[in-house]
């Protein structure tokens, strides 16, 4: 079942009303049952897998916490995390095995396996919880239903955001959990509407424009460039839409999820961009991969840092899939990040000395960063390296066949362009409906807020039946 389906939205109402009305000791169990039913609409077979993973995630932290020595703690940690990573790799990268064997010269027939929906999200949650207990950030949760709900909470299971255990459990324990609070419901509905608007009105109308621009791009370099620009906005609106729906749904049931985006298109360099794009994933990787690895390699200085960035970005790449294009996406971002970090001191010194140039520097930074992101996303988008290179070539050839423009029909480019512009503005300036944390100062976009939402409301109603699959539901 998709979040944008009519039946899903109708079912939310009774689910929420029952939750608000029931005794507080049953609320977790109720949400758990609903979450499992929701997951079962995708696959009953994989519900068993989710249950098995949940049991491991419940037991491992208890074993770590009660272990008599550091050695035992380490053994329980390593075994459980290894097992979870193994499950992730088997399901996500199983098809690589066939290709590998074929390259050696053998041919084997492996059964086709479907990736369980949401697996990379709930496994990352599970790993972070186990490591948090090992690091003594939190004590293990005794109530198994809370742990099970942490992994399966239906607003977050399809595509995150990847919430952390301390945050989630403390909200479950709060007296406000699962209680009818009108101001919170208003914010929740705002997020739902924003998310639907971003997905159904923006992303789904940029999509046909990208396809048409791609066709024209063969003869016209400007069209090829615009196709890549529009895709960046499409990806943002698609995923930000999905995230905002997830946040809104969570809020309806009393859970505030972490944000995934904070003005990524307003970033003045690549380092800032990656602190603002898919934040729940990047902060997860920073906490559980990058920092521990940096601590291990801290004696190596710069080389250690560069290596850690490379590993981190390659993992962000292959987290999306096993294709070489994702490896390339990670590699390009690693190189760009290393350059950014290596030049930080020089840039800071320069702008301290010539502080009048700050505004110009920032403007150039935003434009440059957006173009670098678009460049890297070319590999993310295309299904093979050669296709991506063709697409970059198409931009660099400076073809100017104006007939290609004429092939663009009115009903594609008008909604597509409008949606791209609004999507870009949301990605560059919109800060969220209410304060989430210190990195979000406040929202000054009341005009565009009112405008986009009132138009949004009408369009969502008109277009709701045409929803297509979310891009990020694949990962």
């Amino acid at each position, binding site marked *: 079942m998709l979040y944008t389906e009519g039946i899903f939205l109708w079912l939310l109402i009774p689910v929420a009303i029952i939750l608000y009305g029931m005794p507080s000791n049953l609320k977790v169990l109720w949400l758990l049952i609903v979450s499992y039913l929701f997951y079962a609409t995708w696959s009953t077979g994989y519900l068993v897998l989710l249950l098995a993973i949940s049991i491991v995630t419940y037991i491992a932290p208890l074993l770590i916490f009660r272990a008599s020595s550091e050695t035992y703690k380490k053994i329980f940690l390593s075994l459980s995390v290894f097992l979870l990573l193994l499950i992730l790799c088997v399901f996500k990268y199983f098809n690589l095995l066939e290709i590998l064997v074929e390259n050696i010269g053998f041919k084997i027939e492996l059964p086709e396996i479907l990736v369980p929906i949401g697996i990379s999200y709930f496994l990352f949650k599970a790993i972070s919880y186990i490591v948090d207990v*090992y*690091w*003594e950030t939190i004590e293990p949760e005794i109530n198994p239903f809370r742990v099970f709900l942490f992994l399966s909470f239906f607003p977050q299971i399809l595509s995150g955001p990847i919430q952390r255990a301390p945050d989630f459990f403390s909200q479950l324990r709060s007296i406000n959990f699962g209680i009818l609070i009108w101001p919170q419901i208003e914010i929740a509905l705002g997020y739902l509407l924003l998310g639907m608007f971003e997905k159904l009105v923006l992303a789904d109308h940029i999509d046909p424009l990208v396809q048409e621009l791609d066709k024209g791009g063969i003869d016209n370099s400007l069209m090829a460039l615009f196709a890549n620009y529009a895709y960046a906005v499409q990806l943002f609106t698609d995923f930000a839409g999905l995230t905002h729906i997830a946040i809104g749904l969570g809020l309806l049931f009393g859970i505030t999820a972490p944000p995934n985006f904070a003005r990524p298109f307003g970033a003045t360099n690549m380092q800032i961009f990656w602190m603002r794009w898919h934040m729940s994933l990047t902060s997860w990787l*920073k906490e559980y991969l990058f*920092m*521990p690895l*940096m*601590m*291990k390699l*801290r*004696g190596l200085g710069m080389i250690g*840092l560069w290596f850690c960035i490379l590993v981190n970005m390659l993992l962000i790449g292959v987290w999306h899939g096993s294709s070489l294009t994702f490896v390339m996406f990670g590699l390009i971002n690693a190189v760009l990040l290393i350059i950014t*970090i290596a030049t930080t*001191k020089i840039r*800071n010194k320069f702008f301290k000395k010539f502080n009048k140039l700050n505004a110009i520097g920032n403007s150039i930074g935003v434009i440059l960063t957006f173009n670098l992101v678009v460049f890297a996303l070319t590999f993310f988008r295309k299904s093979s390296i050669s296709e991506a290179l063709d697409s970059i070539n198409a931009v660099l050839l400076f073809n100017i066949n104006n007939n290609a423009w004429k092939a663009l029909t009115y009903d594609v480019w008008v909604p597509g362009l409008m949606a791209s512009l609004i999507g870009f503005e949301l990605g560059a300036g919109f800060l969220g409906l209410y304060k989430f944390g*210190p990195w979000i100062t406040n929202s000054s976009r009341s005009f565009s807020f009112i405008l986009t939402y009132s138009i949004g409301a009408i369009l969502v109603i008109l277009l709701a039946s045409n929803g297509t699959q979310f891009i990020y539901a694949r990962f």
Partner: protein
Amino acid sequence: MKQIEIYENLNIIFKDILDINEINLTNETTAEDVENWDSLSHINLIVAIEKNFNISFTTREAKSFNNVGEMVELIFTKLN
């Protein structure tokens, strides 16, 4: 080494690593109060502190500090 000496040492290290002119660390100072103290420079600080006091931190210790006071406390116990 007394706690006050640890603070004096830390002030010098922080100024050098974070590239700032003036700093006065107290036991309540946190990363948010200090310019340029992000997760990357945190690792650099850890390395410099380890070298300066000739001690070593585990990953768990390095990420456990909530403020400078806790950091000084741990350095103090490691030294004595």
